[in-house]
């Protein structure tokens, strides 16, 4: 089975010697919904731009459906839908004209889906893009991206700057697409609740490298955070060396340790090793996981 989207050891920088992506390898299979998380500037947009053929990887390669987006842009882009936070739809044409352009370029355009979504979003074909609000313009972009029934949907912070209702509508459309077509979805987002709702897998990107690449349910059930007072374990190396320890971070006068395993088992293990010294194990919601892995030492 060819992966739908695959980056192989991609390296890219914009300034010599300062890599934005430093050896990133991710492989996405058909039907997955992958949430790409990372701090601003971690390289998510660059990674996505490389996938869309808009950037050349200095080293490594990218393949969509086994094809290169730079060598065969038409074959690739016919099967991909793309929505980005800063995608600029030309402001002069009307919605109808933009849709007409897409209709003529994508033979598999689904007219009934187009009508249904236009109705759902309450958009009129005669409105000019420049007079739409940000949310409405984003909805148009989403329309253009999904109505040709793509096999892969790439969303680069699609809900950025949108109000909660607009974000929810976006999710609903994505879920509907998942139901109907089994589309593979890759989306980068800062909104953890959205990610927790529909992602099956989560990839954390930091400083150009993949820090974490796991199934979301595995994170919820199979990892937890242990809070260990500094006094109990002055040497973090001991903790880091324990099997199943994913990350140790200093926070005030405690160590925050992300460990694999259920809460009770981890609590038992740590207590066995370090003694009953006020060790607590708590669940790890995605937002906390994000901060643990990507937050700086100051947090």
């Amino acid at each position, binding site marked *: 089975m060819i992966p739908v989207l695959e980056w192989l050891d991609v390296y890219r920088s914009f300034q010599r010697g300062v890599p934005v992506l430093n050896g990133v390898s991710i492989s996405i299979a058909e039907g997955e919904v992958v949430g790409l998380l990372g701090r601003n500037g971690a390289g998510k947009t660059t990674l996505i731009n490389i996938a869309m053929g808009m950037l050349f990887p200095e080293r490594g390669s990218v393949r969509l459906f086994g094809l290169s987006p730079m060598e065969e*842009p038409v074959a690739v882009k016919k099967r991909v839908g793309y929505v980005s936070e800063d995608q600029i739809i030309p402001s002069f044409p009307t919605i109808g004209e933009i849709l007409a352009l897409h209709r003529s370029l994508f033979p598999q355009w689904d007219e009934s889906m187009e009508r249904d979504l236009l109705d759902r979003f309450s958009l009129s074909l005669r409105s000019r893009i420049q007079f739409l609000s940000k949310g409405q313009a984003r909805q148009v972009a989403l329309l253009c991206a999904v109505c040709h029934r793509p096999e892969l949907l790439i969303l680069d912070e699609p809900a950025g700057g949108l109000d909660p209702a607009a974000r929810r509508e976006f999710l609903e459309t994505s879920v509907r697409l998942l139901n109907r077509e089994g589309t593979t979805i890759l989306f980068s987002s800062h909104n953890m609740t959205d990610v927790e709702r529909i992602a099956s897998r989560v990839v954390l990107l930091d400083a150009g490298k993949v820090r974490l690449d796991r199934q979301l349910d595995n994170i919820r059930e199979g990892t937890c955070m242990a809070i260990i007072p500094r006094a109990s374990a002055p040497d973090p190396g001991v903790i880091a060396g324990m099997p199943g320890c994913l990350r140790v971070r200093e926070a005030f006068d405690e160590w925050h340790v992300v460990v694999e395993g259920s809460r009770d088992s981890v609590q038992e293990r740590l207590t066995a090793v370090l003694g009953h010294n006020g060790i607590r194990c708590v669940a790890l919601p995605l937002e906390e996981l994000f901060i643990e892995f990507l937050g700086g030492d100051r947090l």
Partner: protein
Amino acid sequence: MRQAAFYALMKHDFCWKAAPWMTIAVAVLAALRPTGMMEVLFIVIAAVVYGRGNFHAERFVGALPVEGREIFLAQLFSVMFLIGAPAAAAAAIAPGLPYLKIAGACLLMYLAPYSIRTERFAAPKWLRQMVIVLGILLFIAVNISILPLTVTLAMMIPALFFKVWTTVPKSFQLAARNPPGRFVGMKPFTNGQWTLQLVRWPFLRFVVLGWHLILVIPFLFVLGMGAWQWTLFFLFSMSMTFVAWSKFEESAMLLRTLPIPSRTILLTILLPMLAAVAAGYYAGVWPDFPPLRMQIVTITILAGATIVGTLVPATMRWRRVRFVAPLFLAPALTILWRGFRGLPPFPDTNVTGTLLRISRPVPEGVLLVIAAAVLTLLFLALEKVFAESEYAKNPETPARFWRSAE
């Protein structure tokens, strides 16, 4: 190369859509046999080509399943249509002008910046804005025939076309393939102005040294020199002032949130413009300076016109006086019409003379004071309007009066 994609892109192009309207407008004008035909054709087409924006592709197009060459050809054909159709119509109706040369020059003006940095989504921003200067140079060359223009065009156009055709990538890139040593901005689509690294005062640099403002200064200079009698140039300069002011307002949006008095912000844009006009005037009359009285009157008129030129677009942002801007449309059209007939902008070009006669009994010192008072009043009006302006995302501009939005 797929035909369907090519047609779709072409139909979507702004130039393609504007071409029929341009052809009709130019045909109508040609039928009335104006003397300023060549300038009209050139300026109108140049403005549209320039206003078209990006010379390559928009990022929106980059996500579509099309190849770079398809995009290039579609754009090229749209622009050729926009240039060619009006030129052909004008040639049919009012023969006798070098339409082919004009059309060729416009095409060159489009191809030249395009051929730079073809791999990326857009040519460098400063270059896109310099295209207008290129256009003017070409225009002068066409007018005074210093180059063997036909030969130049016949050689350069195919050469540039070939260069672009062979280098345009299948998929446009956002950044250079290999990063340079020096840091290059990653966002080619921000509205930030490229500024010269000369001036120390940050806000001056921010406001004044945007390219749109730098371009308007030489126009005002030439205007002051006496080119205001050349109607189309006059109108064009006024339009540039209009545009420059609108762009200035965008940069001023940030400055207003800072503890800088709005008067200071206003003066930073106004003073260079007034200085340019005045300097132009003196450059024009050098070395025979007219009597002081005449100088005062002329400079007041020129300076006043410049302030009014910024006042009119400024009123569009203050709801109460929004009606003012459309009022100027009628006189502007009249002046445009006069330009086509080969007449100077104002019926009685002796406005200066009239004013001089009226002011004869007044001593020069008093005249100076009156002139200063008039200019100050105009400035205060501008200040008031500037203070009241609103920054709605889509301000209700007068254009909406005759277009209903959904």
